């Protein structure tokens, strides 16, 4: 005990404590953190409008109205199409958990089958964009180089040059796209959720949308230069230069400059 008490006075003690605290925090986070949502594309099934209506009335009608006609809190869903439902519910944004600057993606609340049924019901209310086919969202069918040109003129000002996300006004933000499935990216372009504009066929053809998906897909490959540092640009590079670079060099300076006698 006495030895322990003496060690507590050691000037390296805070450093050791800090390291232990960091390790502990990391370990606790790894255990407690929710597993990331699996946003796989739902399989297309038959027309389940009736089941979809029941799910809608049980889960969505409080805000969107009993017949999806909209209320003062939430918009009408007549004519938004199956694509909007598949995106909003399939990424966990709907049903909405709490209000804030922006509806956040969270764990998906329904099974793929239920989402398809909900989508079928909403689609039955009025014509709107349909869920894209697998072929339409296949990155292999797009040209990533054309995708780069389109992405940087249409998307990069909010989503960052490689889709790492960016800030909007008043706490809103453009989310990172690197974890988003090609289908949801396509649907987002088609329906323009929240602050995002709609990119319809006249703005970006379906082939161009596919090019953009191919470009985003190419960003998931490891960077040729090594660790990507969040793909956030010079700010994160600067932080790393100071923390790792100057940190290491000062550590070496202290070592070399330590009294040799």
């Amino acid at each position, binding site marked *: 005990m006495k030895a322990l008490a003496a060690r507590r006075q050691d000037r390296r003690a805070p450093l050791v404590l800090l390291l232990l605290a960091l390790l502990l925090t990391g370990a606790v986070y790894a255990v407690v953190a929710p597993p990331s949502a699996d946003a796989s594309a739902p399989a297309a099934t038959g027309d389940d409008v009736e089941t979809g209506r029941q799910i809608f009335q049980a889960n969505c009608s409080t805000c969107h109205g009993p017949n999806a006609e909209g209320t003062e809190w939430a918009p009408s869903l007549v004519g938004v199409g199956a694509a909007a439902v598949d995106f909003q519910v399939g990424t966990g944004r709907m049903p909405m958990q709490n209000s804030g600057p922006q509806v956040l993606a969270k764990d998906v609340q329904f099974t793929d089958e239920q989402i398809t049924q909900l989508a079928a019901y909403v689609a039955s209310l009025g014509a709107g964009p349909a869920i894209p086919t697998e072929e339409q969202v296949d990155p292999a069918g797009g040209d990533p180089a054309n995708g780069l040109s389109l992405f940087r003129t249409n998307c990069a000002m909010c989503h960052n040059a490689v889709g790492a996300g960016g800030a909007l006004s008043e*706490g809103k933000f453009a989310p990172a796209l690197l974890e988003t499935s090609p289908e949801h990216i396509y649907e987002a372009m088609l329906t323009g959720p929240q602050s995002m504009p709609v990119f319809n066929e006249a703005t970006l053809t379906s082939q161009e949308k596919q090019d953009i998906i191919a470009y985003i897909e190419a960003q998931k490959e490891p960077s040729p230069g090594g660790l990507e540092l969040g793909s956030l640009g010079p700010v994160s590079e600067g932080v790393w230069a100071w923390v*790792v*670079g100057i940190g290491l060099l000062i550590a070496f300076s202290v070592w070399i*400059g330590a009294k040799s006698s």
Partner: protein
Amino acid sequence: MTTTTTTPTRTGRAAAATADYLDQRTSVGGAVKEFARKVFPDHWSFLLGEVALYSFVTLLISGAFLTMFFVPSMAETEYTGPFATQEGLHMTEAYASTLRLSFEVRGGLLMRQIHHWAALIFMASIVVHMMRVFFTGAFRKPRELNWVVGFTLLILGLAAGFTGYSLPDDVLSGNGLRITDGVVRSIPIVGSYLSYMIFGGEFPGTDLIPRLYTIHILLVPALILALIGLHLLFVVLHKHTQFPGSGRTDKNVVGYPLFPVYVAKAGGFFFVVFGVLALMGATMSINPVWNYGPYDPSPVSAGAQPDWYMLFLEGSLRLMPGGAEVVIAGYTLSLNVLIPAVVVPGLLFSLLALYPFVEAAVSGDKREHHVLDRPRNVPFRTAFGVAVLTAFFVLVLAGSNDLIATHFRMSLNDITGVLRIAFFVAPVAAFWMTKRICLSLQRKDRELVLHGHESARIVRFASGEYIEVHKPLDEHERWLRVQHEAIRPLEIEPAEDARGVRRKGYRSDALKQRVSRWFYEDRVEPVTPAELVAAHSHGEHDALEAVPVEQAPQLTGGGRHLVEPTDPDAGDRRA
């Protein structure tokens, strides 16, 4: 030693013959002898300037490699190469050759990344080195001019970094150039002419990259090299400063000779710096130009920022409210750009460059200083330095406001609002806090010198009084805490002489005095020998287990009251 002189080996003979050959033709022997015996004091913070020097050498080596493959041309071409997302895009030769040297030249990407990391570290180490020099007062006479040389090196480093950042001609670098164009245009009257001169016509033109290239690889590095030479020459002339300690004065240098200790240390340190930079270049991606694509004036992506050393400028522009444009007789004066991009940095940098001269004027100190200050002993300077750094840091945060917003889930507008206020309030608060901390640390030093370390031994007297026994400081500890002098405000001659004639130069003296009061009014005087003797006069009683009751009140072991000097003959050692 004796073996080599009595029975020289073959290599020994060869080395001696070579040395003799050189010496007879260049007389280099004298210089080697002189330099090898030069003494350097030991402290890790004296190596920070070396980090800058070695990262500059790394920049030269990796930069020379890059020039072999980079094509500084704005001629247009179409890319065909291994990188899929660029295939078939229209781009300039500059951008295409950057891609080629990254993906097709063996080791090219590694060299590019080493070069860029080295640039960031070069600037960072200059700043850290400058902070060390500033906070320890190493810029005082005779080193004021060397401070200016170092400051010029900082500005040249900014120029080198900026021109290099702009060379690859990707979207991000083009955005930076567009901002530069805007800043140049905001200068009243000459702005648009200057912009046309720089870009050779309307932005972006076709002349800029070749021009930047010449500046980046020829003009700026040559100037930096020359000034580094001057900087080091001054170090040799002035000799190195040393931290205060027993045996160190303004008339000596305590340390090891350059040869062999520092030759080995410094030589080895180059490889350490190069190794760290190579490690960073090999493992961490930097400026991936292929993410941004070839330059086109229309797109600007989220998270478009300059390298860290220019971030304060970006932040300054982001903080400035947009409406500050004045139209005078049909001509627009863009104060919304002029103030944040020209006036604010101009002010901050001028403060930095001129500080040594201001301090010399208001302290009236004309002596040479080779022993460094402990930052706490010069509260105003330390606080001022922290205030300027705080202002820069607020601007850097403002330049990263979008990333702060997304990563900490905060409102971009609120961050900007808070930082607008912080830019004015935070430096003042930092100044006040730092000054108070410095003064408190000095009082702590006084306390320690007068009463010694707490020993955790509590003694109870027969009277019932408790004291803690204090262990006196040893001579070295004490010297460190009493060797400095507290500078007092300037005293000036009266406004009128004995005959009542107004004195010339009184007004400027009075101004100096006012500033001097502001600098040095608040101070803690170091302990004088007389005070020390007075405080220790009852020290021997600490060893006693019990003392007569009537003496007990003198045993103020905690020492909360300071004792006035009682011995008038003790004198002031600092006088």
